[in-house]
């Protein structure tokens, strides 16, 4: 079966506007695949190459080396975009359009007929919970609402792959929860998702597989559970543990010759820990890409 996303040895070098003609390698030799129906999280700090990778995948920029493909179609071909829905980071749509007009516009661009769009936008507005604001111009929308109309827009032509760049950036917790639920619904519908985020908590909640990208390279990749499971560590999850009980556990561990207590706290930060491990090991002076003049 054709993978939803296939990225083969992708390298992207940008020319920096300067007198010396400096170049910055944003992505270097990156390969990854997203299976159909899979939700893939691409995580990394700012400037690590997440957005660049996504832009190449969408044909917005051309790869310097390597190839990217969506369901087997080369990203450089416009046709490959039929199967993609994209939500950029902090999306701004045409403020002079209403929600319904926006969906109509993107639906037509996606190649839908007017009637199909009418039905589909009804469906999507219900899905993202914007039925009440359908006739309002987007200039009056909040950030969370824009993000949701962005999602609806991305889904209009029923793409088999959805690309989400920081889908919850700047959205309040309630809004980001709604978006998370929507992503989970994609899985039910068999839609593949590739999303980038630095909100690790969320990635952990929704993704099947995660890739950690740093300085343009994919440093770790794997299924969520595999990444999380650490062979020589054991996690004990307690409920309603009193401080006294924790103190006693600590004492008990101290008695043991081999074992040591690493940490006591909320378990959800494991990915965050992993992330920090992967991204703080390198020397800080090469952050943001290597330079080869």
């Amino acid at each position, binding site marked *: 079966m054709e993978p939803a996303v296939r990225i083969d040895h992708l390298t992207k070098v*940008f020319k920096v506007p300067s007198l010396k003609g400096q170049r910055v390698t944003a992505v270097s030799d990156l390969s990854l695949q997203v299976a159909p129906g899979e939700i893939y999280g691409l995580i990394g700090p700012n400037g690590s190459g997440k957005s660049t990778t996504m*832009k190449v995948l*969408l*044909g*917005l*920029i*051309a790869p310097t080396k390597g190839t990217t493909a969506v369901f087997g179609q080369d990203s450089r071909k*416009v*046709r490959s*975009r*039929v*199967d*993609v*829905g*994209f*939500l*950029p*980071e*902090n*999306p*701004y*749509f*045409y403020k*002079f*359009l209403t929600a319904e*007009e926006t969906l109509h*516009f*993107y639906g*037509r*661009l*996606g*190649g*839908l007929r007017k009637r*199909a769009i009418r039905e*589909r936008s009804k469906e999507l507005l219900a899905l993202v919970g914007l039925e009440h604001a359908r006739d309002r111009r987007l200039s009056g929308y909040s950030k969370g609402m824009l993000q949701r109309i*962005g999602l609806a*827009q*991305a889904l209009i*032509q*029923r*793409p*088999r792959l959805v*690309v989400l760049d920081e889908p919850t950036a700047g959205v309040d917790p309630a809004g980001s929860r709604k978006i998370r639920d929507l992503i989970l619904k994609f899985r039910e*519908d*068999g839609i593949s998702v590739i999303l980038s985020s630095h909100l690790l908590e969320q990635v952990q909640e929704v993704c099947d597989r995660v890739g950690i990208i740093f300085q343009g390279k994919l440093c770790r990749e794997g299924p969520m559970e595999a990444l999380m499971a650490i062979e020589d560590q054991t996690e004990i999850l307690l409920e309603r543990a009193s401080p006294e009980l924790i103190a006693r556990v600590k004492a008990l561990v101290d008695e043991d010759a081999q074992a040591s207590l690493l940490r006591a706290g909320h378990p959800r930060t494991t990915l965050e820990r992993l992330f920090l491990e992967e991204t703080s090991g390198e020397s800080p002076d090469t952050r943001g890409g290597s330079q080869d003049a």
Partner: protein
Amino acid sequence: MHNLAVYRHFSPARVGVLARNTLTQLVRMRAFYFLLIFSVIVLVSALLIQNFTFDPARQLKIMKDMSFFAMSMFGTIFAIVATANLIPKDVEDRTLYTILAKPVPRFEYLLGKYLGAMLVIVLSMAVMMLMLCVVLYLRQQALLTEQQALLDAGAPHAEEIAVVIDELKADGPSTSLITAAAAICLQAMVLGAVTLFVSTFASSGLFTVVVAFMLFFVGYIEPVVVDYWRGSMESLGSFANACIHVVELIFPNFQSFNLVDDVVSGKTLPLSLFFKILGMGLSYVVVYLLAAYFIFADKEL
């Protein structure tokens, strides 16, 4: 689940959607109304200023001059300013990402944006032209009735009144006025394509506007100056000649679209010549859009 979309390599429908969207955008922008109000002011002032002249036929000329001036200004300014910001604004607002992430070829995007802006120009020109024709016709009829009444009342100088009547009859709305307006439109369209081309590689909207105005300015004056040099100085140095050729190559020749001055003074352009000018203008549009596409297709967004 099956994908609903049908993809075609070139789809006029998509171009149409983009054009309509741009039209909506520009129409919902206030600046557009401001320019229309400007033209209305000019038309109204054209009516008020009539009392100034003695020659009834000259009143009609004043109206035409004022209106064509308004149309030229509107067309030129709008073609440059509106087109210069089409792409930068989409890049800045990141709407371009969402559009190109749909199955939309970049050429269609450019074409759609361009056509949308041109649609605004053509539509408003048509409105202004209609306004001019109506006002001109009404004024012409009023003046004719006035002169005829003088004639019927047995006023002296009947023969001179007859001449005035003939002049008035010739100065009403005519097809040559429409060719002049069409030439203004065509000029705006060429200017729009040139501006769009500049905006594909410009670093800022201001840069685009300045360069486009310069191209327009030089492109207008250059043919006249070159003509003058050639006429007045028989033997130009080979260096000067080479310079002239370079200038001619770089700057579009906007003088070809300048019909207004002569049409207003009553000259008629043969239709065949008008079609040549039309062909010239459309070639400019096609070539500059193509050049814009080459740069835009390669652009890293």
